[in-house]
């Protein structure tokens, strides 16, 4: 098999449609007779619903229906628990999942209490303003630490202390490690809320065809198959009666997988009841309140080191804000707990977290999905240890790397896929060397920085390392089929939100079947096309679905060769498959096109031989035994204006290892996009809540996404350590770029301002010019 396309920077198949404005997104679906939905939402973070009167709204011209919780009858029930708690002994988990419409009390601002369906969105919003809702405000559990107190207002009346979960995981003997330590360094770290803010908000369109008894749903989901299965169950339909399509999706980043959002439950139900298609498209304000957020955590962490800076152990106790409900289980805090261990040999680890319900929008994975928090803690602890011991920051990391001969490396604790945390492969020192070289670390520290300091300029450097568990199970599948036209179709169940699946999967197939990329049509996210699958999350699309595609393509190749061998009356080994045809080796005019082979394999007369199947088609599934561990190093040189605390990134370097790359151009795009989100997370983006649980900055003018002026040019390099866990040797890359921004900014800005020497540490994220100014102005004492 030639590999013309695998590993090449192939231009994307999907781009032409998107560039011409012809990519179909959910809001582009237009159906005859379509109605439009709008929601009435709670203005309070915590309030009892004392009464609701939709009569004026119902009487409004153009209104088809107004639904409250009571109108839902038996259909009203809490949503499913998507991820159960991990099998960790002694764990506590209180399942409280979101509801379709508020029935008793609202638990966060923006929780829907009524749905209005009307002839246009404008009319639906007019009528929504006429729904009279009487609220009795309740005391609010807003700030994480306050919500965790035993006497805090209860988000769920039957859950004292708002404890959503409590999990302790241990490796080795931390107490013994601490006893032997040369130093123990303790710190408190805070990592505040952020939001994914895809440029396309969420949306759902549903159409019930009563004649065919079929429901069609277009949904901005990352997991269409799970939506189909859930809808069928909720609506009392067979899965075969429900088609869910995730067409082009304008960015996902995690929150578009939080099934089921109330709208995903209600819009299809309303379409069935009303006998007309219903569309709901979230507006940006709704997105701020109703699409899941991520990540406030507070860590009390300590690291025990020997005199050479080697880690003897880490202990961490943290609070995790899960928002008002916890349908996604403990994925985010488990990621934090596990990813803290990083690329380092940590012999003893004792980590305990408490997930806390608060009166805020629920928290589910967003790109990185809690990994950032763990990386922030370990990287900042290492910085503190390096400062304490007078060690170089890069050197302390190098000393603690897991050596290349230690793989597979077992970290013993349970990961988010409920398998013991294990790193399949890795080689970290070359990544660090490359990053230090690219950023000019040695020269900067010894020559440039002292010279700049002498000029009164504040320029600092940072270097941080991380691992990312990617490509977890359970499985994905793919069907590869040669059409009689010679075109090849590839069907998978995952959704796609810009990751280039239409191209990367085509590359895998094109090499196997000897066809051009443009002749491979990839269809994702349509449950009528492929039945099975889990979804696009956890940096797993290319790894899991990619390997399924590979398996199916290899099987089709074997079928094509067998069919051609029969046709030419030769052995399959004597055949060559290329340029869209199969030919006898050395006899190029003895050839048959793939499309003709597909027709031969599906005869209209005669018998298909026993044990064979018609057509050139195969289905394959791939389920990795555990996740593939990618890794990276980011380094940055930053100048800080000591008056305004505005920053200028002078250099940003990424060295990344995601194993074998299917398409380096797409990999680069994934990493660069991640870096931009990491920069936003580290320095610009903060969801600001007041003590009443009100979000104070719910516009894009106030919640600051980085623009082309804040995101610098990034130098990117790769090392390649293939994964032994899948035939293609690949590891996921979707989330990597976004993970280490926090500690990188904290370290580099600290260095620029010379803060550690003054005993001041930037131990929180996000930072901002204001916040850095406040922290730098404190008299934290001297060391």
């Amino acid at each position, binding site marked *: 098999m030639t590999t013309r396309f695998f590993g090449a920077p192939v*231009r*994307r198949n*999907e*781009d*032409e449609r*998107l*560039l*011409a*404005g*012809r*990519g*179909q*997104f959910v*809001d*582009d679906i*237009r159906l005859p007779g379509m109605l439009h939905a709008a929601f009435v939402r709670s203005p309070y973070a915590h309030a009892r619903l004392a009464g609701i009167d939709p009569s004026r709204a119902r009487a409004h*011209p153009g209104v088809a229906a107004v639904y409250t919780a009571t109108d839902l009858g038996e259909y009203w029930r809490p949503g499913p628990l998507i991820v159960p708690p991990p099998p960790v002994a002694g764990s506590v988990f209180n399942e409280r999942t979101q509801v379709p419409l508020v029935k008793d009390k609202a638990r966060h601002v923006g929780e829907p209490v009524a749905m209005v369906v009307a002839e246009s969105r*404008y009319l639906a919003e007019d009528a929504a303003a006429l729904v009279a809702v009487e609220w009795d405000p309740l005391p609010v559990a807003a700030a994480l630490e306050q919500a965790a107190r035993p006497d805090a207002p209860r988000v769920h009346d039957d859950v004292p202390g708002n404890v959503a979960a409590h999990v302790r995981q241990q490796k080795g003997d931390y107490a013994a490690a601490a006893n032997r330590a040369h130093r123990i360094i303790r710190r408190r770290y805070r990592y505040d809320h952020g939001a*994914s*803010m*895809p*440029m*396309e*908000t969420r949306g759902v369109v549903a159409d019930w065809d009563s004649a065919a008894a079929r429901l069609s749903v277009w949904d901005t989901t990352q997991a269409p198959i799970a939506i189909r299965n859930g809808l069928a169950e909720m609506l009392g339909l067979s899965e075969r009666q429900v088609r869910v399509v995730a067409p*082009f*999706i*304008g*960015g*996902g*980043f995690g929150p578009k997988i939080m099934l089921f959002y109330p709208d995903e439950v209600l819009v299809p139900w309303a379409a069935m009841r009303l006998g007309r298609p219903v569309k709901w498209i979230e*507006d*940006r304000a709704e997105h701020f309140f109703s699409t899941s957020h991520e990540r406030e955590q507070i860590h009390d962490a300590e690291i025990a080191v020997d005199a050479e800076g080697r880690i003897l152990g880490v202990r961490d106790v943290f609070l995790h804000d899960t928002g008002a409900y916890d349908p996604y289980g403990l994925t985010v805090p488990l990621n934090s707990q596990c990813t803290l261990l990083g690329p380092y040999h940590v012999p003893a680890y004792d980590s305990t977290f408490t997930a806390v319900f608060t009166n805020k929008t629920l928290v589910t994975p967003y790109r990185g999905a809690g990994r950032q928090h763990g990386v922030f803690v370990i990287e900042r602890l290492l910085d503190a240890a390096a400062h304490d011991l007078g060690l170089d920051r890069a050197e302390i990391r190098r000393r603690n790397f897991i050596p290349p001969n230690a793989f597979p490396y077992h970290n013993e604790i349970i990961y988010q896929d409920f398998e013991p945390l294990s790193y399949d492969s890795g080689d970290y020192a070359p990544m660090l060397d490359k990053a230090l070289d690219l950023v000019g670390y040695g020269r900067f520290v010894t020559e440039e920085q002292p010279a700049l300091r002498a000029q009164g300029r504040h320029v600092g450097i940072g270097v941080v390392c991380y691992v990312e568990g990617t490509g977890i199970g359970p499985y994905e599948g793919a069907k590869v089929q040669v059409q009689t036209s010679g075109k090849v179709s590839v069907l998978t169940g995952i959704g796609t*939100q*810009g*990751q*280039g699946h239409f191209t990367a999967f085509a590359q895998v197939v094109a090499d196997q079947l000897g066809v051009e990329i443009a002749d491979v049509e990839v269809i994702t996210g349509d449950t009528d096309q492929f039945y099975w699958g889990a979804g696009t999350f956890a940096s797993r699309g290319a790894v899991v679905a990619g390997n399924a595609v590979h398996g199916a393509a290899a099987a089709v190749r074997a079928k094509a060769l067998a069919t051609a061998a029969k046709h030419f009356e030769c052995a399959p080994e004597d055949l060559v498959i290329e340029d869209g045809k199969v030919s006898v080796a050395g006899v190029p005019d003895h050839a048959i096109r793939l499309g003709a082979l597909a027709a031969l394999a599906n005869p209209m007369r005669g018998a298909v031989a026993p044990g064979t199947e018609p057509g050139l088609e195969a289905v394959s599934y791939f389920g990795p035994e555990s996740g593939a561990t990618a890794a990276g190093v980011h380094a940055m040189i930053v100048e800080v204006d000591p008056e305004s605390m505005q920053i200028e990134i002078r250099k940003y370097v990424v060295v990344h290892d995601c194993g074998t790359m299917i398409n380096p*151009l*797409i990999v*680069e*795009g994934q990493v*660069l*996009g*991640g*870096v*931009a*989100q990491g920069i936003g997370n580290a320095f610009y983006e903060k969801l600001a809540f007041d003590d009443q649980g009100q979000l104070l900055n719910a*516009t*894009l*003018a106030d919640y600051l*996404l980085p*623009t*082309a*002026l804040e*995101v610098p*040019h*990034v130098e990117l390099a790769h090392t390649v350590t293939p994964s032994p866990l899948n035939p293609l040797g690949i590891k996921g890359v979707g989330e990597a*770029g976004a993970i280490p921004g926090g500690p990188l900014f904290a370290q580099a800005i600290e260095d620029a301002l010379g803060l550690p020497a003054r005993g001041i540490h930037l131990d929180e994220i996000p930072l901002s010019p204001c916040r850095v100014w406040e922290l730098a102005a404190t008299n934290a004492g001297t060391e």
Partner: protein
Amino acid sequence: MIGRVRVRVVVNGVRHEREVEPRLLLSDFIRHELGLTGTHVGCEHGVCGACTVQLDGEPIRSCLMFAAQADGAAIATVEGLAPAPGELAPLQAAFREAHGLQCGYCTPGILMTLDAFLKAHPHPDEADIRAALSGNLCRCTGYQHIVAAVLLATRRNA
């Protein structure tokens, strides 16, 4: 109750005339009245730039205007950029070449912004391009490949 107003516009060279509510946003008019869904809506408060179209040659946010205000104007949307079906304009082709898009949702607005920018500034450097691009939010690419695409397009144009 609410009256209707007449809107006459030329969009991508084609005349359209509609009676619409005065409050209808230009973005909704383009998308839902005319069915030109290549123009996307990202925030409806004028920050993200996804809905950018050209009004009499100037890039504007179609979510910040009423359709009624566009009466008599010539509008260009992303659907009008390519010279013919199945072809791409040089800027579009450069986006494909440089991987200047991922999910593609912000792309039409960015193309309409940059198309106008490049007409006024045919030879920009990277800093110019970043400044021109700074009113359009992209959550996928980190902008680097967009900048590369514009540089590629201007080199080819030189």
